């Protein structure tokens, strides 16, 4: 199973985990990651985020990353859900779930997908504070994290 969904509505961790187990014969590991909206950026308290994306292109770019993860590691299922629209602090933003025979592959693939998603997928975050709003800027740390996968599978 390769599942990639961009949606505004929330998702259920238990349902997504259930799907990964249900579709994964012979698996020995499931690694899940959930990103949440922080309530502070630095010293500033957030009221909410708005997440914009480029429909079809976003899904295609994430699919390419998921396909690459299957080429790099031995996996059974990958599921990626990214929410868009208005999100408030502590809301779930995204889900990445990977199942495989062994934990090492599942951990690496999950981190690879996250690192690539943050630097390649056509999604943009606008951060709203009480009296101002600003578009999030790219982080060098995210670029560095994604770059390391060019030369390594670990």
């Amino acid at each position, binding site marked *: 199973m390769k599942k990639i969904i961009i949606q505004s509505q929330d998702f259920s961790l238990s349902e997504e985990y259930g799907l990964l187990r249900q579709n994964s014969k012979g698996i020995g590991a499931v690694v899940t990651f959930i990103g949440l909206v922080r309530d502070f950026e630095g010293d500033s308290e957030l009221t909410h985020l708005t997440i914009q994306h480029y429909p079809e*292109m976003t899904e295609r770019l994430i699919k390419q990353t998921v396909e690459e993860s299957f080429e790099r590691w031995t996996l059974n299922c990958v599921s990626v859900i990214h929410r868009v629209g208005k999100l408030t602090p502590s809301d779930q933003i995204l889900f990445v779930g990977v199942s495989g025979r062994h934990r090492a592959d599942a951990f690496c693939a999950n981190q690879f997908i996250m690192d690539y998603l*943050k630097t390649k997928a056509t999604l943009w975050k606008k951060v709203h504070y009480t009296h101002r709003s600003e578009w999030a800027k790219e982080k060098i740390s995210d670029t560095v994290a994604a770059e390391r996968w060019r030369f390594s599978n670990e």
Partner: protein
Amino acid sequence: MCEVKLKFFGYLSDLSEEVPTVLSATTPTQIRSKLAIKFPKLASELHSPSLLLAVNKIIVNWDEPLEDGDEVAFLPPVTGG
């Protein structure tokens, strides 16, 4: 000259609220030149080296020949996740 659709994302979407959604142009470079006349601030941002350009959702260069009905999207560095 082709009629192409324009899309702006991220911080560019705030700068492009008055920009027409359809424009006549043969290359993305020509789009940028045309926008510079009425929207100099936006056009200046389109010179950013970190900006990517997509035609029909495929990343291309600024000299990509455009065809009638193409969708040209200007993509600032992404910040999802």
